[in-house]
Each structure stands twice: as C-alpha cells, then as structure tokens.
C-alpha cells in the first residue's frame, strides 16, 4: 500500500517538475493532498499491522501522519499565497511544489518505517529535499544557511549511522540479520549494554540536528532565518517530529534493558541544556523567525524532559509534540502576513500590528498565548503533565530549574510580542499595496481551536493512539 503511494507521488512530483503549468500544478497538488489523507486514514484503520517487511502502521506513526496531513493542507494553502505575492516564475513555482511533495513523501516514509536502515535513509532524503526549499530565496544569507544546514545535517546523519552500526553489531552477535525494530526489541535484553549506550548516544547526537535538541540545534535556527515562512512552519513542526520519531524508535529498543535509567538521565540532561541554551540566546535575539526557532528549541527540550521523566511523561511528551506542531505552524503562517506589511523580519522594524491588521493581530495574540503554555492552551496541559512526571519520578531540581528558565523565556517573548502588537506604527511605513485577505487567518484559528479542543476534551481515538504509542514502553 505504501509502496503504491510512493510510486504515485513520485510520478506526481515528476509531472509537476517537468510540466511547469500552473493549472496542472494546482490540480496535482490537490490530488496529492487527497492521496496523503487517504493514506493516513487507511493507516489508522489498519493500525498495528505490517504493510511490508519495512513498513508498519504503528500508532505513533499514524498520529504523526494525521498531523502531517492537516499541516500539509495548511502549508500548501499558505505556500500558494506566498508564491502568488512574490511573483515567482512558473519554473520556480513548479520546483517548489515538486520539492514540497517529495518532502512530504519522504517524511511519510520515515514515519512508517519499521526498519532502522529505511528510517535512516528517509531522514537523509528529507535533509536533502528540505535544503532545496530553504535555499528558495537565493540570497547570500540563504546560501550560507543552506550550506551549513546541509553540511552539519550530513555530519549528524553520519554519526547516527555509526550508532546504528554499533547496534547492528551487537544484534548480529545475537543472531539478528536485519535491522527491523520489532526484532531488535525482542533481543534487546541480550545485547551488550556498553554498545547499547554508545549507539544511543551517537544516534541522539546525530538525530538532534533534525529534532533541534542541544548538540546540533544551531542549524535549524539558521535555516529558519532564511526560509520562506510556510517552509519554516514545516521545518519547525513535522521535520522535528521526524527527528523525535527516530530518537523514539531507538528509545523503545532500549526501554526494557538495564540501561534505561542511564538513558533517561541523558535525555534529562539534553532537555535541560536545550532549554538553557534557548533562554540564553533568546536574550539577544533581534530577528523574528530566529525567536520562534529558539522557542522551538525550548519546546523540544521540554519534550526530551518528558521522555526522560518517564511514567506519565511519555504520554505528555507525545501530547506536547502534537500541540506544538499545530501552534508553531499557525505562528509561522502569521509571520508570512506580518512580512507582507513590514517587509522585514527585524524586531525593531515591526510594531503596531494590531492597528494595521486587527484580525491578524488577534491571531498573533492567541498564538502567543498558546505557545507560552498559558491556559486554555493544550500546551499547558502537556507541560503540566511533564512537570508532574518530573516531580513524581524524583527529579525536583530539574523541574525547578526548567521552571525558572521558562519564566525568563516567557518574559522575553512576551516583551517582543507586545512590542509587535501594541507599540506605535513605525514612521514612514507605506502599506498601500498590501493585499492581505482577512480570510487567510481562518486556518490559524482552526489550528488553535484544535489545540484547545484536544487539550481540554480529547476524543477517545486520540488518547487511544497515544496510549498505543507508549504501550511498548511499559
């Protein structure tokens, strides 16, 4: 089933890339989105079944695939607006959509992968495809950021490969001949703990470039500064989910061995350091999208803390991931509109947004309330659960340190937001030919209300999915 989807999307993507007509691009994009949603729903109906030896419809994969479907619809819509406003040529537009479709396909392959080698190869493919999209604006800074992104992600992926290699060495010693995850879980107790520790550490370092955790988080920050806003939305959310999924798979392999306490301590340290780095670097930030990128770093650090805490923390980590995806995406979509008005991303140039665009300003306000985990946002629920898990499992100092750091972050972000919304409009700003449709912000309101609804009163299939995802850990 998935193989058919991949071949189908490759054909679609090639046709978009080669034919370069606007109507065909529109039509094929809509067909692609429909196909992807169909795959998600199909995967949900066939949950926990193997599709082929390399793919399995795992619960976490289904959940993240739903998120991907919803966000890809929104991203395609906002990309359409972005490209229309920037008046790009037909060839560039076709390249953009083709790359975006291939990126979504690669991410789907990474979500559903059952085999570590397939997972690794899909993550590698996403790196390459996303760098095409980051470089889209062809400026000098974009070149610099893309080069750094490509290079450091490649080095990170090489380290992750060494980690997988060590894992396969111990697995090969115990008789396993392929890298399927369920096979690795079944022989996990027999594997040498030293090798498991080393391979986990290397995989964590390597995939932290994708997820945006402490060692290699810098590339995502630079990438965010130069990418078009819809792509920034994609990178911040679904691509970080891919990184999380890769780390999570390896975490499930070691979950029932004797090294689980050490692994959770490592995750706690990494999470704490991520939040710490985010706090420090946020004090000096002057650029809007960089600010949001550091906010993503902070949230991913909190997710790592949830994984490191254990117990209810597992549930809360996945919840946090989903909510963060929706909230951060709507933030970035709104940033596209902000750029339309002010033509700049520097914080000092942007102020008085409420007067210029009341609906947009309202959406920014709700987004920020959401991202700072203030109730009724769903992120409040997940962060509350994570802190509860930290206190229950005897890590009070970590929790207190993170709470203090979070208060600094809230202060900084709120300061910049209030400057954005309520300060005076900068003098000499001309905004006559700004074509901003009020109805564009509907997508963000939809996403935010989804976050609130899922946080306060989640439907049963949602909680079942998450519980199914963490069942292998208990």
């Amino acid at each position, binding site marked *: 089933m998935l193989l058919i989807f991949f071949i189908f999307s490759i054909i679609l993507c090639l046709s978009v890339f080669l034919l370069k007509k606007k109507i065909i691009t529109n039509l094929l994009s809509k067909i692609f989105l429909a196909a992807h949603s169909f795959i998600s729903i199909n995967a949900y109906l066939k949950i926990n079944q193997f599709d082929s030896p390399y793919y399995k419809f795992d619960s976490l994969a289904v959940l993240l695939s739903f998120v991907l479907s919803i966000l890809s619809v929104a991203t395609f819509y906002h990309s359409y607006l972005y490209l229309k406003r920037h008046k790009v040529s037909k060839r560039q537009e076709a390249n953009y959509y083709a790359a975006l479709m291939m990126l979504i396909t690669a991410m789907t392959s990474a979500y559903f992968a059952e085999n570590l*080698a397939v997972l690794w190869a899909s993550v590698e493919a996403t790196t*390459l495809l996303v760098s095409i999209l980051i470089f889209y604006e062809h400026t*000098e800074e974009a*070149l610099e950021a893309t080069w750094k992104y490509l290079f450091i992600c*490649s080095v990170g992926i*090489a380290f992750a*490969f060494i980690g997988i290699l060590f894992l*396969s060495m111990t697995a090969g010693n115990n008789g396993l001949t392929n*890298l399927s995850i369920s096979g690795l879980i079944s022989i996990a107790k027999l594997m040498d703990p030293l090798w498991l520790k080393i391979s986990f550490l290397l995989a964590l370092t390597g995939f932290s470039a994708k997820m945006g955790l402490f060692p290699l988080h810098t590339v995502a920050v630079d990438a965010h500064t130069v990418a078009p806003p819809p792509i920034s939305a994609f990178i911040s959310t679904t691509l970080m989910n891919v990184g999380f999924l890769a780390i999570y798979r390896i975490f499930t392999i070691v979950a029932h061995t004797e090294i689980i306490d050490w692994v959770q301590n490592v995750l706690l340290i990494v999470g704490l350091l991520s939040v710490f780095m985010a706090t420090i670097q946020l004090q000096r930030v002057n650029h809007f999208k*960089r600010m949001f990128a550091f906010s993503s770093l902070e949230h991913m650090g909190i997710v790592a803390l949830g994984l490191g805490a254990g117990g209810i923390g597992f549930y809360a980590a996945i919840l946090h991931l989903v909510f963060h995806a929706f909230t951060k995406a709507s933030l970035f979509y709104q940033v596209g509109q902000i750029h339309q008005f002010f033509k700049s991303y520097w914080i000092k140039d942007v102020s008085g947004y409420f007067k210029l665009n009341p609906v947009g300003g309202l959406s920014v306000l709700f987004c920020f309330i959401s991202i700072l985990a203030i109730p009724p946002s769903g992120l409040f629920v997940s962060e509350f659960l994570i802190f509860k898990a930290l206190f229950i499992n005897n890590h009070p100092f970590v929790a207190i340190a993170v709470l203090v750091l979070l208060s600094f972050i809230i202060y900084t972000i709120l300061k910049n937001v209030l400057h954005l919304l309520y300060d005076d409009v900068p003098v000499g700003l001309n905004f006559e030919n700004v074509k901003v449709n009020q109805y564009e912000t509907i997508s963000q309101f939809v996403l935010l209300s989804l976050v609130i609804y899922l946080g306060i009163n989640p439907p049963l299939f949602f909680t079942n999915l998450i519980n199914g995802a963490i069942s292998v850990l208990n």
Partner: protein
Amino acid sequence: MTYLFIILYAITLIYFALSERTKKFIWLLAIQGLILFGVVFFSLNEIDIFDFIFILLETIIVKTMVVPWFLNKVRKHNQLKREHEPYVPVFYSIIVVILILMVSFLLSSYLNNGNMHTQYFTVAFTSIIFGGYFIIIHKNIFSNVVGYLIIENGIFLLSLAVGSVMPIMVNLAILLDIFMAVLILGLFINRVGDTFKSLKTEYLSKLKD
C-alpha cells in the same frame, strides 16, 4: 595481508595532515579508495558471491573514480590551488594525528570483546576523529567536504566489522550517503564559489544575532 592495508591507510592519514595542496587531497582520497578495495577483497570472503562483487565494484568505482573526478571538477571550476594557512600549523597537526591514533588504539582495546572483527577499529576510529579535526582546522569549505569524506571512509571500515552478517544493507547506505553528499555538496560548492567569489569560510559568517 590485511595488516598491510591497515598500515597503508594510517600512513595516508598522516599524509593528509602533512599536505597542503588541494590536488594532493584528492589524490590521497583516491588512494584511500584503492586501499579500501584491497581491504574488502581480503576480508569479506564469507558472504555470497553477488553481494561480494557488488561491494567490490561499488568501492572501486565510487570511492576511487567517481568521487575524486567530481572533486577535481569542483577544484578546477573554483581554481583552488592550496590551502592557505590552516588554523593549526602542519607540524602540530602531525603530532595530533599520532595522538589521535594512540587514543583510538586505547579506545579499541577497551571496547574489544573478542567475538567481532575488530582489527579495523583502530584505523576506523582514527579516521573518524581525524576527519572531524580536519574539518575544524581548515578554513576552506572544499576542505570541509574532504574531511567529511575521510569520516565516510572511516565509517566504511567500521561497517566491515558487521559486513559478514548484514552486507547489503550497510553498504547500500554508504553508497547513498556518498552519492548524495558529493553531488549535492559539490553543486553547492560551485554555487557558493560563484556567489562569493571565494571559498573561504570567513565569508560565510553573516548570519548572527
């Protein structure tokens, strides 16, 4: 026989620390590909014949011919002649290579547990750590790519330790990595060279807060 290749591989790493010309880097990478070909030929003879021939061909074609040819094209396009003054003088780099060799030797003897093919671990770890060191001390992004390829060669050596059990998967992954890395990185180097008219990394430092 494989010990000969281990010695030769370590000597090429020392020559990497010693040399300063870009053409020599490419030449050394080709020689490393040849050495790896010899290593594969003499060690992986327990797997069936088709996998064996495929891995041999992949090593000799990709590592010895395609990658150096591609890097040569990039070098000519950007007119790179030599590496001006790395951050650490060459004399100390050679001492550092020896220190890395000894550290990786201690590391591999610590990790040794006797039932795996760990004869290559020493040079593999040396290669990986030295590749990282190489990336750090050179100021040119072409040298960054060369350092990445040194890391790749080290990973290839490591994968030979498990290659007798799971041959195809591991080596296909390496193949993908090298192709994508060199093609895309090579294309981007040309783009960076054309935009900035130079490949020094000090031009790539504008993105700051």
